[in-house]
């Protein structure tokens, strides 16, 4: 009774307000513009953020310059959602049930953390740069207005990046043939400058400021990524991967990040993983859930993705080698780190000028 009276008075209030105002214009978005805007949206969604795996990388690439965003990849969405699923070329699962003698993810990550903690501690000045060189292979997908897709695998190529150790507002440098030329990087954005970055764009100083207790660290990551991605666990794993891939962290923080990853449900060991250069290693994977239609006309359902993001480690040193992000056209997408160093100037190579 009360509720219906209230609803009645609500409607009356709305009606009175409408009468007090001139009638505003209303029109349809012209059909050709609606089509153009929708096509733009669909292309953007498929090109820039196809999967949670690429979210961090795509975000960073967008941050670093518009050009690379188009080259960022559709590996899993394209492969997982439509293309590969329909053509029946899905790669077989890369990991079966664990055999006896293999460590659990927690045991393995603990050893990986110990190895990371033994790395030398660096003396870093605020005016220096993180230099990361990697071999990368990604794919790009174009979607036409009719909905047909074309996915092209980029050739394997070297990527080099210089990023300020202390301030994301300071220009960096990217050399990567997919944008086509060396480019200055800058991210003023809506940041207040100077800015040591955050979870998506960490500087050395940001990473240095993090707590080394894995539970505290993981809770901070859950809080910072709340509401993002497909699930809190997946988003946490992706976020940690972003900080380990194209950045440099102090040894104790690297170790804490690995121990935090060990606490995430759904993380498992891939005993025999192969990076994109064909080197074998030991892998740690997040068991990603995907929405997939097995065939045209068959309803979408939630299933398990054997191509989930996988960190690959050197089996003897247990140091980070690279990351695999699913396969496209039978080729493994991802990156392998060649060199990390702190250098004095933009464009300077480690130990050189």
């Amino acid at each position, binding site marked *: 009774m009360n509720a219906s009276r209230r609803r009645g008075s609500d409607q009356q209030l709305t009606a009175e307000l409408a009468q007090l105002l001139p009638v505003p214009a209303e029109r349809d978005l012209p059909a050709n513009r609606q089509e153009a*805007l929708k096509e*733009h949206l669909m292309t953007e969604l498929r090109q820039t953020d196809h999967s949670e795996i690429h979210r961090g990388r795509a975000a960073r690439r967008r941050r670093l310059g518009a050009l690379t965003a188009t080259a960022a990849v559709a590996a899993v969405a394209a492969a997982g959602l439509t293309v590969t699923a329909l053509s029946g070329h899905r790669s077989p699962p890369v990991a079966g049930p664990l055999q006896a003698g293999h460590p659990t993810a927690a045991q393995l990550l603990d050893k990986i953390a110990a190895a990371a903690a033994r790395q030398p501690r660096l003396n870093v000045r605020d005016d220096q740069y993180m230099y990361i060189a990697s071999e990368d292979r990604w794919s790009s997908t174009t979607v036409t207005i009719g909905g047909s897709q074309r996915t092209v695998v980029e050739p394997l190529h070297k990527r080099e990046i210089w990023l300020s150790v202390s301030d994301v507002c300071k220009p960096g440098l990217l050399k990567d043939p997919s944008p086509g030329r060396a480019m200055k990087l800058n991210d003023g*954005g809506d940041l207040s400058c100077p800015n040591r970055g955050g979870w998506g764009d960490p500087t050395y100083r940001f990473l240095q400021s993090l707590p080394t207790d894995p539970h505290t660290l993981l809770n901070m990551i859950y809080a910072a990524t709340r509401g993002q991605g497909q699930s809190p666990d997946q988003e946490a794993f992706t976020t940690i991967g972003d900080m380990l891939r194209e950045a440099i962290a102090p040894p104790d923080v690297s170790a804490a990040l690995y121990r935090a990853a060990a606490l995430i449900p759904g993380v498992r060991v891939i005993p025999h993983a192969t990076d994109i250069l064909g080197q074998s290693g030991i892998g740690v994977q997040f068991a990603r859930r995907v*929405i997939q239609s097995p065939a045209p006309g068959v*309803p979408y359902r939630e299933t398990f993705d054997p191509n989930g993001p996988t960190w690959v480690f050197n089996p003897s040193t247990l140091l980070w080698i690279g990351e695999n992000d699913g396969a496209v056209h039978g080729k493994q997408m991802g990156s392998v780190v060649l060199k990390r160093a702190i250098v004095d100037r933009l464009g300077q190579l480690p130990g050189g000028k």
Partner: protein
Amino acid sequence: MELSLRARVRAGDPDAFGVLFDECGQAVYNLAFRMTGNWSAAEEVVSLTFLEAWRLRGTVRPVGGSLRPWLLGIAVNVTRNAARASRRHQAALGRLPPAPVIPDFADDLAGRIDDAARLAAVRSAVGRLRRGEREVLALCVWSGLDYPAAAQALGVPVGTVRSRLSRARARLAKLAAADQPGAHPAGPDREPRCRSAQEQGGRPTAARPDQERSP
């Protein structure tokens, strides 16, 4: 079991966003026009709203009805923080197909002039409301959301929606009374109206990326 549109949106299925665009694009466009007063700015708000929706898809609740209130809430935030949203999606906006400069038909041009005149009247009326009051008014009166849906869209309690609308009604009623013949036309109350009429021909509220980019 077939997943609902809501579940597919949450899961990041691009096709689900295509369906959402077909269903709600027009509603976002009209809300955006009323908030910005400019049809081409409204187009940009439509794009930004859906790009933001994609970014924020994880915040969709697992169960619920239409996603329209959620989208309209994002649209309100986009118009409020247009500069921030367009910087976030700067690269994507750079690829937005440009709107034709010359309208296809002469009556379309006339229609736009008429729209602008009607809008000037509306804006002069709502120009004196507070931002929060304008937002609930746009959602409840123009976009037809009920109070709980508007509350959810804006992330405020239902009581706040009611009180803002009541305040808006009181303010508008006072304004209407002042506009009656015999009321003093040149009182201090007139001044904000002139200002909002000038804004009409000025820069659209939604920032365009080329203007945001530093040289």
